[in-house]
């Protein structure tokens, strides 16, 4: 394929990606160093109220937004350097909290709170998702052929459901005296409120994510199990390998590339955790990095969006993505080099 033809075929897709992915990235970087604010002016206002002999007059200095000729509030954009990053990271308080060695103090700062949750969420769900997916795949592979179709159908439901709705559907089972909370209360004999403290919400969020992603890992591992070399399995049996040893030394090594693939995809997706916070409405207790950006972008009571701080938060979020991607890129590069040779 000549370069010109290739370019013609790729051009529309490339154009969209440059315009809507690459350009916004640059604009986010730019926005994080600049701050757009309304211009305020100080005016001396004299208010007089009628009095008995003479008027009571009060003079005070008020600041009010400047209204431009077109009737809109005048805004100005100024270079603020790292100010937005400083607002977000709160270095003074952070250092103070670290000096005290108090984690609770540190986690009062939104950014660290979000980072803490995002990282623990990613790292805890990763092994669970792989393990549960593998167990389902093995169990389905064991099952009678005729029930595999229906089981796959049911398994796909949690995967395909809208994330916000999936989180809500689990929330509704527990909210107030929902049936599962009632069941837990009956079992433990204590009063339980699942949404009154952070850690119970976090458990539900972890459960939701595993429930949502396990079908995906299951389907991939199940497809991998179909291609396990039967001869190797048989020779393992002849060598006297037990069932567990066969799983450990034949099946899992065969699935290893898939496990790596699933792990990388899951790391990317779990790092972007967002819908759980909306669905479980946990913003008062637990927030994630993406939710923090979302929250800063949502207009506050006076209709202002903190674009600059949201941009700074986005840039900091991306640093994490870079760390996640380096192993993936190195692997792809190795494969490519291997193929080219």
């Amino acid at each position: 394929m000549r370069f010109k033809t290739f370019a013609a075929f790729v051009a529309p897709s490339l154009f969209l990606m440059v315009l809507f992915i690459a350009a916004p990235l640059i604009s986010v970087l730019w926005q994080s160093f600049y701050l757009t604010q309304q211009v305020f002016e100080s005016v001396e206002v004299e208010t007089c109220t009628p009095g008995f002999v003479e008027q009571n007059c009060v003079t005070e200095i008020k600041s009010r937004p400047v209204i431009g000729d077109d009737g809109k509030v005048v805004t100005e954009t100024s270079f603020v350097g790292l100010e937005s990053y400083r607002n977000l990271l709160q270095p003074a308080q952070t250092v103070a909290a670290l000096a005290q060695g108090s984690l609770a103090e540190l986690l009062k700062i939104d950014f660290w709170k979000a980072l803490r949750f995002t990282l623990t969420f990613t790292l805890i769900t990763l092994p669970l998702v792989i393990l549960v997916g593998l167990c389902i795949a093995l169990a389905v592979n064991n099952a009678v052929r005729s029930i595999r179709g229906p089981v796959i159908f049911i398994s796909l439901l949690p995967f395909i459901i809208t994330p916000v709705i999936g989180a809500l559907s689990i929330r509704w089972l527990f909210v107030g005296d929902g049936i599962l909370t009632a069941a837990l209360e009956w079992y433990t004999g204590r009063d339980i409120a699942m949404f009154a403290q952070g850690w119970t919400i976090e458990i539900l969020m972890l459960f939701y994510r595993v429930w949502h992603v396990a079908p995906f890992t299951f389907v991939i591992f199940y497809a991998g199990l179909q291609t396990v070399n039967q001869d190797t399995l048989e020779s393992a049996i002849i060598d006297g390998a037990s069932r567990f040893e066969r799983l450990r030394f034949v099946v899992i090594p065969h699935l290893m590339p898939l496990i790596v693939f699933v792990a990388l995809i899951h790391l990317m997706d779990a790092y972007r955790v967002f819908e759980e916070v909306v669905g479980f409405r946990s913003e008062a207790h637990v927030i994630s990095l993406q939710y923090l950006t979302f929250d800063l972008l949502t207009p506050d009571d006076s209709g202002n969006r903190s674009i600059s701080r949201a941009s700074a938060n986005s840039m900091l979020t991306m640093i994490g993505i870079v760390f996640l991607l380096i192993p993936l890129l190195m692997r792809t590069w190795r494969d490519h080099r291997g193929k080219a040779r």
Partner: protein
Amino acid sequence: MSTPRALRQSPALRLSSASFLVLWCVMAAFPIFWIAVMSFKVPIDAFASNPFDVIFGPTTRAAGKGLSLFDIVAGAALLALTWYVATRHVARLASALAIGGSQPLGWVLAAAIFIAGTLAVFGFVAPAILGPIDSLLGPLGRPIIGLTMEHYQAVWFDNQFYRNFFNSLIVTAGVVTISLSVGTLAGYALARSGSSLAFWLLIIALVFRALPHSVLVTGYLPPFINSAEILRPIFGDAAPTLYGKPWAVIMVLVSINQPFTIWMLRSFFMNIPAELDEAARVDGCSHFEAFRRVIMPVMWPGVITTGLFSFLLAYNDYLVTALLLDAQNQTMVPAITGYFNRETTTTDQVEAVAAAVSITAPLFVLVMVFQRQIVSGLTAGAVKG
């Protein structure tokens, strides 16, 4: 065929494997099943702590809303009839509606007519006919399971959820068609070109796929809000404000989805033998003609699968649509959060449940129809490398 003795499993292993599978299936289906049950009950029953109250709905039944034994029998018969029509007549309808010989269009139209018909029969015709009959039947016509459609009615008609539904329809339809037409071209070129430029494009796409969507939205928001002023030098006074425009959101979602789409389509195109288009080239076709005449007829399985995933992305999206669309043009998923802000009464909560079930129902049908394509799409990227 009998399994070799060495491979045979002990009863304990079989039992634990089977019970694990049952446990998983219950866990997978239960929350979805349960919200579906809740949505048909009055609030007291829906949020009762006794599960049997939720299923049978005594308060709903006491209010005279429910299904009698006769209704259940009639409903089952109607369901069987629906199944019969779906399997026998929809295909014929589809070929009759294939205007201009376009099969996919015929199927879409036939499916839309069939679904609308089913909803009308179950939602309006059946209750209207069965109600009077029940009152004549005496004990057989007395409700035994509480069931009410009032929340659906409140959501869809009183709260105008149908507007959100049409917005979702516009956004998803736009995203699927545009991202497929742009993506197939790129995916085809990337699959056929072994150059290192193609490799680097794919790597960059992979990096783009990992970006959190909130980062991108942060980049869009200020230019979108101010776009009328930014674009004025080019378009003059007709410069549009992109914020709140469904077609702007469509372009955004298409672009966000583009990396995933081209990776997936590329892996499908890799499976179509290159000899096919080489033969067409020898016969004198240009690259584009070869693509149109030879590749397009055989690429549909991959395109349908990729289309399904584009559909899911657009349909399930919360973050982009919540931030870039205003309240008038809101799609279904962000619209549901409107119920939280005024979630003061339990009625509002059950209405939110009904809205959630309404959003989930199309996805349920989708899995039923396209299970095989979804599974093949999930494994396409992974197993082939």
